């Protein structure tokens, strides 16, 4: 089957399950199958039907997407949306599908699909951690990678790195100018380097 036919099959099957057809987006494959288009096409479902659509994608025999490859969030501030993109794969049919939904950026909330694919558990925690999407019904929605008290969600485009976290600077001190440093270290007489007699250069370990 060509990618276009595969996508059409998936679309029809999901339409049957949801009662409304998901929209095709992205580099929609050319029905004639002529030139392979750059990039992937996807099926977009309304956020309210997300869990239903995911369950159908896993359970319908003609879909059978048993492997959740990745679940990613994409921040699109210019549109005021956060997209959630699931990359699915079916070992039975040897076929991939991109399923997508779009959320309000101001208060992104989505039904968790951790009950559909256990693999979604950590991906959703990451989604909450890095993009601030609240997953309804997630068994254990804690931050995954960052500390619990980290300010904000860094993969948002407008996130600003704080200057310090609990008193620890997040950046290395500004580079001293070559002149200042030259006085301290480099042009110091040879032997003040690292050899045992000379000890560390200035400012090294102190006394």
């Amino acid at each position, binding site marked *: 089957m060509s990618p276009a036919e595969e996508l059409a099959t998936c679309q029809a099957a999901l339409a049957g399950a949801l009662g409304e057809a998901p929209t095709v987006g992205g580099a929609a494959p050319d029905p004639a199958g002529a030139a392979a288009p750059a990039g992937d096409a996807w099926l977009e479902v309304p956020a309210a039907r997300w869990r239903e659509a995911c369950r159908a994608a896993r359970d319908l025999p003609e879909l059978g997407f048993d492997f959740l490859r990745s679940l990613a969030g994409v921040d699109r501030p210019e549109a005021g949306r956060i997209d959630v993109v699931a990359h699915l794969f079916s070992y039975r049919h040897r076929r991939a599908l991109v399923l997508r939904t779009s959320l309000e950026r101001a208060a992104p909330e989505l039904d968790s699909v951790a009950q559909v694919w256990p693999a979604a558990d950590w991906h959703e925690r990451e989604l909450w951690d890095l993009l601030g999407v609240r997953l309804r019904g997630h068994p254990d929605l804690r931050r995954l990678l960052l500390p619990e008290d980290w300010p904000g969600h860094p993969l948002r485009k407008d996130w600003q790195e704080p200057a310090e976290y609990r008193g620890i600077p997040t950046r290395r001190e500004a*580079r001293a100018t070559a002149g200042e440093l030259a006085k301290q270290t480099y042009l110091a007489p*040879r032997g003040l*380097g*690292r050899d045992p007699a000379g000890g560390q250069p200035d400012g*090294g370990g102190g006394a």
Partner: protein
Amino acid sequence: MGALASYLRAIGRTVLSVGDGLAVTFSYLLRAPVTLQYPDRMRVPVIELLPERSRGMLEVDLDLCTGCAACDRACPIDCIALEVVKHAERGRLIQRFDIDLGKCMFCGLCTEACPTGAIRHSHEFEGGTGDVRALVVPFVDAPRQPAKAKQEPPPAPKPLGSILRARMPGPWDRPRPPARPEGGEHAG
């Protein structure tokens, strides 16, 4: 009874398979050792064993550098601080060329971007220090004129690493301990 028999069989298998493994281990007594005792007992310094493409610490040959800043632009993490100023009488001057080797990830993008080969990877790698700032290596002492893109005749290439060694303190300043002769302490 059956349990005891299988228990005894397991012990038997264990002894046999451990013997199997020990046979391999003992065979290493008869093979040449592969371990080398770094750094003191190497017969040849490691630096001479490195392949030609090895990407060690960076150095800049100011006799070649045109101050074009291609390296500065190519570096993904801003380790290169290059300042070129316009002087009323002397024209363009390279005022500063520092490389922060503490930040550098030795990716080689800067050397690939350089049109003259002025910035290059030496094979030096032993840059450990107690002060991270000591890894910012300045290559310009006083403002100097950049080189011309095409020089006739081209200046003689400097030995790899010599520029860097002159610019930062390092283990190269220490006298090397004499290498142990072969067959000294077992190195395997």
